[in-house]
């Protein structure tokens, strides 16, 4: 790298700075504005003549005309290596707890820390042999990060095949220590350590091929797993008006999903919600691994009051870390909350650049950006043959709860499953408030298709009867229709709704979902005989009571069997055989 290039600040508008330069600049390179002893990180986003426009990742208060700007020639990047898990970063990968140690209660602008601890030593075990030919992303060796075997890989930035010249013996090293030297096709030697740097806006593609997502990801949320499942390596979105439970749903999934690693990108949302995750996860135990949940979690947190431009980069930081772990053959779930705030950050910058606005003042490239973000998800076969996946779930916060707005529409075009939350359901306290009729998924569920179809038919018909009853009244509805209506409500009450505060009911494993859904299926396909509508209603009300108690009894215990029998006994009395 030549001596750093310098520019001069000539204009400021919010978090957009105009800089005059003499030499040359590169689109999207990182630059620092030097203000007294502060260095404010920014990124070049437009160049006109000898002026570059920069989005500043910090508050611009007090900046003055004529201040020096230093261009770095590097794209905005993250550091990848052991030590990411359990950490909490801001959108630029600054570790927040360490920042708090340095600057106290408030975030101090211009203070950037190393993302990973340089001093900590990790036990490295070599796998690659001297003379071996490797592709970028192939394993040099591994270390142990919590419960995972953390692969140390040939740097993703290398091109073509490289030959292992030197490799360290098994031992403890810090992440900066050179553990291997690789020779590329041109004979250049590249020293490698246990960490590497990668630009966030470029996908990591060091794998053999991308596959079609086919295996379901169990979230333990019944309505999702049964009716609108998510696949490993797939994408889904959760749009919903405020107060309909988007974030709570994401939190539940982050706790219960059967997945190796969860990356939470809290993008432009409330700090309080991140704090809940941050403070609770260390104390929650993952039933799969019996370890604390925080050990499988990385939190990227750029809450709504933190600088807007860093919000834009936070989702990229998150997805890059997700892709990094996928390279190790792990299944990663990225939860982005909320992609609308990310889109709004783009809108703010676009406005300041005075670009011609598209719909609702969003920039014209909105759809493109959303699509390329979700496209970074996927199930892949690595060079070594093993599979890894990144699943992306993003919430959308549509203005006015209206799904016709640009961010929701652009997202729906590219995702594989749609979990639409409805105000109507959340007002009636029917949680999770996912609309069972509007929502859809292109992935297949672990429940038998025949049973799902039957339930969906009842739900649909039940809804129709309910709407009809609003017009013709209960007395104008036939007993038969009325029973269908009750059956639909019953499915909703005892299966689709889940009590997040009940320890057992909050998460239902695959096996139990299959079992219970089968019982439910038997009930809904049965013919019932009732004298009148009142007895029918009373029957379903009392059956619901027993069923809900069954839901909160632990799987395969005596209590479970007892409650199950109660349900079956109750049904027997009224079913026509």
């Amino acid at each position, binding site marked *: 790298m030549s001596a750093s290039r310098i520019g001069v600040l000539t204009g*400021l508008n919010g978090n957009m700075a105009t800089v005059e330069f003499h030499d040359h600049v590169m689109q999207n390179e990182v630059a620092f504005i030097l203000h007294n002893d502060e260095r404010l990180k920014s990124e070049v986003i437009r160049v006109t003549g000898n002026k570059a426009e920069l989005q500043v990742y910090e*508050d611009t208060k007090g900046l003055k005309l004529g201040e020096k700007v230093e261009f770095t020639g590097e794209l905005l990047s993250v550091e990848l290596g052991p030590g990411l898990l359990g950490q909490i970063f801001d959108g630029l990968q600054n570790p927040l707890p360490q920042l708090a140690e340095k600057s106290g209660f408030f*975030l101090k602008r211009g203070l950037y820390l190393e993302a990973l601890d340089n001093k900590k030593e990790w036990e490295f075990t070599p796998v690659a042999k001297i003379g071996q030919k490797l592709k970028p992303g192939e394993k040099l060796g591994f270390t142990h990060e919590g419960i995972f075997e953390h692969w140390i890989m040939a740097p993703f930035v290398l091109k073509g095949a490289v030959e292992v010249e030197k490799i360290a013996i098994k031992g403890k090293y810090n992440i900066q220590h050179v553990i291997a030297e690789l020779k590329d096709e041109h004979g250049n030697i590249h020293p490698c350590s246990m960490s590497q740097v990668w630009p966030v806006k470029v996908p990591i593609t060091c794998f053999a091929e991308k596959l079609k997502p086919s295996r379901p990801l169990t979230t333990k949320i019944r309505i999702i797993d049964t009716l609108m499942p998510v696949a490993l390596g797939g994408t889904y979105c959760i749009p919903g008006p405020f107060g309909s439970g988007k974030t709570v749903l994401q939190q539940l999934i982050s706790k219960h999903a059967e997945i190796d690693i969860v990356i939470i990108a809290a993008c432009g949302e409330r700090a309080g919600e991140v704090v809940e995750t941050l403070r609770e996860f260390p104390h929650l135990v993952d039933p799969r691994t019996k370890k604390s949940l925080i050990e499988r979690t990385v939190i990227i947190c750029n809450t709504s*009051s933190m600088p807007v431009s860093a919000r834009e980069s936070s989702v990229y930081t998150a997805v890059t870390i997700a892709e990094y772990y996928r390279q190790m053959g792990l299944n990663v779930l990225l939860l982005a909350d909320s992609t609308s705030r990310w889109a709004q950050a783009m809108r703010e910058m676009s406005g300041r650049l005075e670009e011609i606005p598209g719909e609702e003042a969003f920039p014209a490239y909105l759809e493109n950006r959303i699509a390329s973000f979700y496209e970074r998800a996927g199930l892949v076969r690595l060079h070594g043959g093993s599979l890894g996946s990144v699943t992306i779930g993003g919430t959308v916060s549509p203005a006015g709860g209206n799904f016709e707005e640009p961010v929701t529409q652009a997202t729906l075009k590219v995702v594989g499953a749609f979990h639409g939350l409805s105000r109507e359901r959340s007002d009636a306290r029917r949680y999770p408030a996912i609309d069972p009729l509007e929502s859809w998924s292109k992935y297949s569920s672990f429940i038998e298709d025949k049973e799902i179809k039957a339930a969906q038919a009842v739900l649909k018909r039940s809804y129709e009867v309910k709407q009809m009853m609003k017009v013709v009244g209960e007395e104008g509805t036939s007993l038969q229709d009325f029973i269908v209506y009750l059956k639909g409500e019953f499915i909703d009450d005892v299966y689709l709704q889940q009590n997040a505060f009940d320890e057992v009911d909050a998460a239902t494993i695959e096996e139990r979902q299959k079992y219970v859904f089968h019982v439910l299926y038997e009930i809904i396909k049965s013919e019932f005989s009732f004298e009148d509508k009142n007895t029918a209603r009373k029957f379903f009300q009392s059956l619901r009571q027993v069923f809900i108690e069954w839901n909160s009894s632990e799987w395969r215990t005596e209590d479970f069997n007892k409650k199950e029998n109660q349900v079956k006994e109750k049904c027997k009395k009224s079913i026509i055989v």
Partner: protein
Amino acid sequence: MQKIYNRIIQIAGNVITVEARDVGYSDLAEISSKAGKSLAQVIRIDGERVYLQIYAGSRGISTEDKIRFLGHPMRVSFTENLLGRLFNGAGLPRDNGPILEENMVEIGGPSVNPAKRIIPRKMIRTGIPMIDIFNSLVESQKLPIFSVPGEPYNELLARIAMQAEVDIIILGGMGLKYDDYLFFRDTLEKNGSLSRAIFFVHTAQDPTVECLLVPDLSLAVAEQFALQGKRVLVLLSDMTNFCDALKEISITMEQIPSNRGYPGDLYSQLAKRYEKAVDFDTAGSITILAVTTMPGDDVTHPVPDNTGYITEGQFYLRNKSIEPFGSLSRLKQLVNGKTRKDHRAIMDRMIQLFSDYREALEKQSMGFHMSEWDKKLLKYGRAFEERMMNISVDIPLEKALDLGWQILAENFELTEISIKTELTSEFWPKK
């Protein structure tokens, strides 16, 4: 050092453009004109053209007026002497008291590091059952009160101010009617709460731009008290006026509006203020209650809509009571599990039944036959409205829960309410 400039090259709305050098972004300037002195803030720098937003408005400003840059952003004095004082939107006294100039702190300071926040655990009791049972207010929560003009929102704020167990109350008034300002002052004075209160009030007749400063002034002071370990309640009324002031400025600056004329960064602007609500690790807390009037009772209007996405729930004030649907305290589950074990069950079930009541009411109004069940619901719903929802009801939480069981037992059979047997055996009133 402080140079004086007098080359005003543009006056548009409340924004003037002046040619100046060595000016910091967001810094303050003082303009002396015939109309008197006013503060102004740098909102854009473009070469040597500096755009200033004038707090007192541009009326009477002449192109030859003198501008002096102060070299620092807006600040407010922070001392114990603030308590019991009344100020305007520019931070100047309204009460004929002395101007405070010691220990100046910057307003609109940086964001709190999320790692230094803690999960709020303390409930703020208000004595209003619709809040205490159904949507408990939690220390460090930020909650708007969505309301149409004409509802008694200021009365509700004042009542909460008097009853809430906090150390300091800060009232930020934006576009407040003068009568309402007097109402707040007199009510708190009568109750004896004025000595622990600070007012920053911009009334409807004051210059628009001053309105923009109110939340920042109030919250900057609140933050300082909270850092000293105090529990502070900030009451803001009305945030819609604040947003309208933002809109006015952004349109003057020729920014591209995003939705109904509001600027694209409305969300970020609101979030920057609301996110000041905090429960500090090892220090005090800030709780924010903010009235947001909804033009045309439309919750999808950009102001309530963006607010709802930021705050931790909302109270809807409608027909002089807090509406159970739509009203939500997102933090309630952090506290309502530790009050009394029937709290959650009563909360959930009473609302579900009330929802069924609303459906029955709809059926009734369309002239349909009312089933036995519908009739029960109607009776229940009316009892609920009269004895629970009525905003004048003032009873502690435990009494309110007992009342809940009472209303259920008067209207339903035990088998119809589907609450766990474990609870009904203890709380179901014996006849």
